[in-house]
C-alpha cells in the first residue's frame, strides 16, 4: 500500500537496509542462545510467546468446538476441565503476562530512553531461560495428563483432591514468576539509571511509564503468588496445614493471597498495552498525547489501586459484607485512571491529522473494546449485579474484552508499529488492514454473545449446557473460527515480510521517539551517535505538501 506517509529525504531513492545491524552481526544458534543483546532476547521471547499463544489458542478452539452443541461428546467432561485450565494457564502466565513487556518492552525500553542495553543484560537472558524452563514444566504437565483445577488453583481442591498434575504445573508457574520479577527489576533499574542526557521523567515516553508501572506490579505482586503456590505445593506434598480445612487451614486465605497477585496481574496484562496505544495514537494523529502528565500518572494510579481491589473476586466467597462493600468502592475507583486514558486518547484524536494504517486500526479496536470491557467491569464491581452474574459467561466475556480485545489488540498494534524497526522491513499494509478487520469482527462475534449468555445464566466451566443456549454458542464458535483465521494471516505475512518486505528505512511512520532516530534494524549498541534529548512527542500535523507527496508515492 502506498499511503504510508513517509517523508523520504530529498536526493535519496528507496530506503536501504543498513549494512551491519543487530540481526546480521553474528550468525548461528549459539549467537542467539548466548546473546545478551536486549533486541535479540526480545525476538527470542517473541518466538516462544507465539508458540504459547498457538497452544493456548488450540485449547480454546477445542473448547469452542465442544460447545457447538449442548451435549457434545467431542471431549469428555474431565478433558474439558483440563482444556479450560490449560487455556487459562498458558494464555495468562505464558502469553499475556510476558507478551508486551518481554517482547516489545525488552526491545524498546533501552532504545526509547537512549541506552545501549538494559542495566543487566545477562540477567535479561537468564529471565528468558527461566521463562522457557517454566514453560517446559507446564507443557510437560499438559502432555502427561494435564491439570483440571482451573487457572485459579482454588484450595482445597488443588491441594488435596485433584488427581491431576497440579504440582508440576504450579512449579512451572512458580519458576516463570521469577522471569517476570527479574524483568521488572531490570526495567526499573534501567529506567532509573540508564536514561540519556536530557531524557527527564517528564519526557519519558508513555510506553516507558506504562512499563515502569507494570514492573512495580511484577516485583511486588509476583512474589506473593510465588509463596502462595509454594504453600499449595507443600500442603499437597508434605501435608502442612495452611489452606485445607481438614488440617485446620482456611481456603479463603488462599483466595486472598492468590487474588492479591492475580488481580494486579490483570493490570500487568493491560498497562503495557495502554503504553503501546499512547505511542501509536500520538504518531497516527500527528499530535502530542493530550494531557501527558495525567496519562503517565494514571499508569501509576492503576498499578497502586490494582493492589487494593482483589476482594471483588470474592464477593460470593463468604468474606465479610463490609469488606465486600469496601472492595466494591475501591474497584470502581480504578475506572477513574482508566477513563483518564481513554478520554485523553480520544482528545488526542480530536482535530488530529489521523491516518488509518494497520497499527491505528488495532488502536481503534483497542479503545472501543477496552471501553466495553472496562464498563462491564463496573457491573461486576457492583455487589448486587456480581452476585447475579458471578461465575457466568458474563465474566468470561468481560475479561476477554480486556485481555483479547484490549491486551492482544494492543500487542498486534505494537507489533505492526515497531515491526519495521525490529526487522528493517515493511509488512504488506493491505493484508495487515484486512487482518485487523477480520480480528475485530471475529472477536466481537466470539465474545459479545457470551455477555448475553452470561446474563441469561449460563455458568462458566461446564462442558454441557441447556439447549436454549445453543444459538448464541454457535455464534460464539463461528466467531472463534474467524478470529483464528485473523490471527493466522499476520503470522504468515509477518514471516513473509522478514525476507520479501520492502526495506523500511529508519523511520517509516515519521514518528518522534528516540527508537526511530537510528537505523532499522538498529546496530547492536542501538545508536551510532551519542544522544541528547530536547523534546518529547514533537509531532506536528501533516502539511498539505506531506499529503500530496504521500499520494504520489
Amino acid at each position, binding site marked *: 500500500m502506498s499511503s504510508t506517509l513517509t517523508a523520504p529525504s530529498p536526493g535519496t531513492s528507496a530506503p536501504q537496509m543498513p549494512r551491519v545491524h543487530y540481526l546480521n552481526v553474528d550468525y548461528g544458534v549459539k549467537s542467539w542462545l548466548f546473546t545478551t543483546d536486549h533486541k535479540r532476547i526480545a525476538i527470542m521471547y517473541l518466538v516462544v510467546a507465539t508458540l504459547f499463544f498457538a497452544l493456548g489458542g488450540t485449547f480454546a478452539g477445542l473448547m469452542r468446538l465442544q460447545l457447538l452443541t449442548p451435549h457434545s461428546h467431542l471431549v469428555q467432561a474431565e478433558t474439558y476441565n483440563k482444556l479450560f485450565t490449560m487455556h487459562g494457564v498458558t494464555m495468562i502466565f505464558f502469553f499475556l503476562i510476558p507478551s508486551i513487556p518481554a517482547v516489545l518492552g525488552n526491545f524498546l525500553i533501552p532504545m526509547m530512553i537512549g541506552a545501549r542495553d538494559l542495566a543487566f543484560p545477562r540477567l535479561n537472558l537468564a529471565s528468558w531461560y527461566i521463562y522457557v524452563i517454566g514453560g517446559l514444566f507446564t507443557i510437560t504437565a499438559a502432555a502427561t495428563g494435564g491439570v483440571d483445577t482451573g487457572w485459579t488453583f482454588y484450595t482445597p481442591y488443588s491441594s488435596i483432591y485433584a488427581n491431576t498434575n497440579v504440582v508440576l504445573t504450579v512449579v512451572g508457574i512458580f519458576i516463570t514468576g521469577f522471569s517476570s520479577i527479574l524483568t521488572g527489576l531490570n526495567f526499573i533499574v534501567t529506567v532509573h539509571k540508564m536514561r540519556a542526557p536530557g531524557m527527564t521523567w517528564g519526557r519519558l515516553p508513555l510506553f516507558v511509564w506504562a512499563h515502569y508501572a507494570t514492573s512495580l506490579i511484577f516485583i*511486588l505482586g509476583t512474589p506473593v503468588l510465588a509463596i502462595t503456590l509454594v504453600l499449595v505445593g507443600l500442603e499437597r506434598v508434605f501435608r502442612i496445614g495452611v489452606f485445607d480445612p481438614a488440617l485446620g487451614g482456611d481456603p479463603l*486465605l488462599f483466595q486472598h493471597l492468590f487474588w492479591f497477585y492475580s488481580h494486579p496481574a490483570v493490570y500487568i496484562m493491560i498497562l503495557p498495552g495502554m503504553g503501546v496505544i499512547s505511542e501509536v495514537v500520538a504518531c497516527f494523529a500527528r499530535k502530542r498525547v493530550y494531557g501527558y502528565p495525567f496519562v503517565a500518572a494514571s499508569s501509576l494510579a492503576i498499578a497502586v489501586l490494582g493492589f487494593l481491589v482483589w476482594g471483588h473476586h470474592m464477593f460470593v466467597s463468604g468474606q465479610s459484607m463490609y469488606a465486600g462493600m469496601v472492595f466494591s468502592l475501591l474497584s470502581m475507583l480504578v475506572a477513574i485512571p482508566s477513563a483518564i486514558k481513554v478520554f485523553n486518547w480520544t482528545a488526542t484524536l480530536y482535530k488530529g491529522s489521523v491516518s488509518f494504517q494497520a497499527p491505528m486500526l488495532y488502536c481503534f479496536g483497542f479503545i472501543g473494546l477496552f471501553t466495553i470491557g472496562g464498563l462491564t467491569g463496573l457491573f461486576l464491581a457492583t455487589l448486587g449485579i456480581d452476585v447475579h452474574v458471578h461465575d457466568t459467561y458474563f465474566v468470561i466475556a468481560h475479561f476477554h474484552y480486556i485481555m483479547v480485545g484490549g491486551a492482544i489488540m494492543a500487542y498486534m498494534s505494537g507489533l505492526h508499529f515497531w515491526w519495521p524497526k525490529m526487522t528493517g522491513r515493511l509488512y504488506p499494509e493491505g493484508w495487515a488492514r484486512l487482518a485487523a478487520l477480520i480480528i475485530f469482527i471475529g472477536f466481537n462475534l466470539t465474545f459479545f454473545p457470551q455477555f448475553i449468555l452470561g446474563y441469561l445464566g449460563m455458568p462458566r466451566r461446564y462442558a454441557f449446557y441447556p439447549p436454549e443456549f445453543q444459538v448464541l454458542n454457535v455464534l460464539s464458535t463461528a466467531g472463534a473460527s474467524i478470529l483464528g483465521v485473523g490471527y493466522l494471516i499476520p503470522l504468515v505475512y509477518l514471516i513473509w515480510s522478514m525476507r520479501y518486505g520492502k526495506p523500511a528505512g529508519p523511520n517509516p511512520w515519521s514518528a518522534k521517539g528516540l527508537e526511530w532516530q537510528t537505523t532499522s534494524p538498529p546496530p547492536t549498541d542501538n545508536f551510532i551517535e551519542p544522544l541528547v534529548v530536547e523534546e518529547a512527542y514533537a509531532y506536528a500535523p501533516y502539511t498539505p505538501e506531506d499529503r500530496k507527496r504521500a499520494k504520489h508515492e
Partner: protein
Amino acid sequence: MSEITTGSALAHQFDDAQQQQQAATLGMWVFLCTEVMMFGGLFTGYVVYRNAYFAGFAAASHRLDVTLGAINTAVLITSSFTMAMAVHSAQTGKRTALTGFLLATMLLGGVFLSIKGTEYASKFHEHLVPGPDFEFDPLLRRQAYVFISFYFAMTGLHALHMVVGLGLLGWLVVGTVRKRFTAAYHTPVEIVGLYWHFVDIVWIFLFPLLYLIERHHR
C-alpha cells in the same frame, strides 16, 4: 545479579563506574522489595491464624526451644556486625581484613544453620512435624498443627535464604583471594552485604513471632 560477576571492568551498557555501581545497588534494593513481599505472604497467613488460633499458637510456641532461638538471634546479629565490618574493610581496601570478616560471617552463618538443624531434629523426635505422625494435646491439636506448619515454612524459607547467602559469601571469598576487589571497586561485597542484612532482619521478626508468644505467663 549475574552482572556482578563482570568484575571491575565496565560493562558496555554503562557510561561510567559510578553508574554501574548505582545500578547494581538499586537492583539489589528492588530485589529485596520482592523478598519482603514474598515473606509478606507468609507473615499475612501467620497473622490470620495467630488471631484465630491464639491458644494453640501459644501452646505450640512453648514447645520451641527458646534458649537455642535466643542464641541463634545473637549469632545472626553478630554475623551482621562482621558483614558490616567486611564491607568497611572492602571500602578501605584492606584485603586481609575483608577475607577474615567474610570467613567469620560464613562461620556464624554455619553455626546458625547447625543450631537450626538440631532444633529441627528434636522436633522430629517429638513428633512436632506436619504429617500423619503429628502428636499434640488433642484439645489444641488442629491449631498447633497450623502453628508448626508455619514454623517449618517460615524458618525453612529463611534457612534457604541463609544457604544462598553462604554461597554468595563463599563466592566473595574466592573473589577476594583473587584480588578482584579494591577500594575503588567492591560493589559485590556491598550488595551481598545488603542481602545478608535482609536475611538477618527477617529472623529478627521470626524469633519473637514464633518463639515468644505468651512467654510472660510462665
